């Protein structure tokens, strides 16, 4: 009877509606967050983070949840003046090799090229800004033990967290070992969008906490007002606590259910 009467009160119904509306902010936050990620990912769709690190770190790096893909590579020379960069390419067969056009001109298609006693067959040429060359994953795996450090080239599923990923990559890795990180994007570009996003988020969170605090406080005051009467009438303190807790739980549970209903309707 006490609980039903509590739920029938206009103020309780109002609390439930307010909580349901506040909970609608969660999908709104999710939507805003997804829009933000999409915005970042569109800006940085052809970019990547590149760094040198030993293969022992591969598992740690692959466990960073924002990292979508890791392409490994190494630097080696083919009798050239400077080292060339070779990256794994899942589309190539074991001994296939694609050279950057700058180096390709020294060879013929079908030529056999030896690298650390591993024989490659030249099948194509390519162009890239950084003169990248491509070998198979299998070949990279066979050759990687010849190098103390490999080139890690990673793409992210959420470029808005690029700075955080950089920190994660850096974690516990001593600078003295020659480690460096190269990120091919401009960190400052989306800053206005971010400020807007965080200000809106902060305002909504503070507003929500304020409203929820007020609802809880009002219920508390109402309960306090009645507790003397109920105690005098023979309700034990345990019963009174149970009634109060049930009221809090019901207000929030019904607010949550109403929120689900609203989401279904909307």
């Amino acid at each position, binding site marked *: 009877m*006490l609980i039903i009467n509590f739920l029938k009160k206009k103020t309780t119904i109002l609390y439930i509606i307010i909580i349901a509306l506040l909970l609608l902010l969660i999908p709104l936050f999710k939507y805003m967050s997804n829009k933000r990620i999409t915005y970042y990912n569109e800006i940085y769709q052809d970019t990547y983070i590149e760094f040198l690190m030993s293969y022992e770190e591969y598992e740690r790096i692959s466990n960073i949840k924002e990292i979508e893909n890791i392409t490994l590579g190494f630097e080696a020379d083919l009798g050239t003046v400077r080292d060339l960069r070779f990256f794994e390419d899942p589309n190539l067969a074991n001994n296939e090799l694609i050279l950057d056009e700058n180096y390709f001109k020294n060879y013929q298609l079908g030529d056999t090229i030896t690298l650390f006693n591993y024989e490659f067959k030249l099948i194509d040429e390519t162009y890239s800004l950084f003169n990248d060359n491509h070998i198979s994953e299998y070949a990279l795996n066979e050759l990687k033990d010849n190098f103390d450090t490999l080139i890690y080239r990673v793409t992210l599923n959420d470029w808005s967290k690029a700075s955080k990923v950089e920190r994660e990559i850096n974690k516990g890795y001593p600078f003295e070992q020659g480690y460096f990180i190269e990120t091919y994007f401009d960190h400052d570009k989306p800053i206005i969008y971010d400020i807007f996003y965080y200000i809106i988020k902060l305002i909504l969170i503070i507003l929500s906490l304020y409203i929820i605090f007020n609802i809880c406080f009002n219920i508390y005051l109402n309960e306090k007002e009645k507790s003397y*009467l109920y105690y*005098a009438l*023979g309700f*034990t303190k345990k019963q009174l606590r149970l009634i109060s807790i049930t009221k809090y739980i019901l207000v929030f549970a019904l607010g949550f259910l109403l929120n689900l209903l609203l989401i279904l309707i909307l």
Partner: protein
Amino acid sequence: MKLDSIYCLYSEGILKDINFTFTNNKLYYIVVPDEKIANRLFELITLMTPIMEGKFYINNLEVSAFSYKKKTILRRENMGLLFKDILLDKDLTIYENVLLPLLNIKTNKKKEKVNALLDRYKLSKVSNYYPSDLSLYQKQLTSLARALINNPQFIIALMPTDLMTKNNEEKFYQELKNISHDRGVIIITKRVKYQNLADEIIFYENKRL
């Protein structure tokens, strides 16, 4: 109900050496000089405050050392309470307010008991109303019906008519006298009114009853 050499703290001192025996067929007035003492005596007699020293008997059972929970159950089973500020739950109807003490008790015919009391005090027509819809007199009658719903041995009233008009006050005292034939009624008050109705008048003087 017997109070034996009881000492009890209150905000401005100590209630000392309270000795009295209340029987369950008399109307008692306890006349006190101020409201603070009235409140403390009310809480003392209704077992809502700890006793410093002395013994409190209900049905020859010494209860002063009982836990809060046991005292609450004793109060529920043996006492009906009337408050100065009436104290009805504003969110419950008149019917529900009278029913309130029975929520804790396994008993049959709850509805019949409530309706009988509502009929007795001519509150049936307003049983679905909320306290805010009623006059002060009707509210205190509701409170009296609620106090009687458990059929307690004692009704303990703290200045129950302070907010009423003189006419209603007299009727209310008369009703308290009527119900005192088969139960004890203890009225804690600052002024002696309708003293002809009282079986015993107890004065609080020099911090003693």
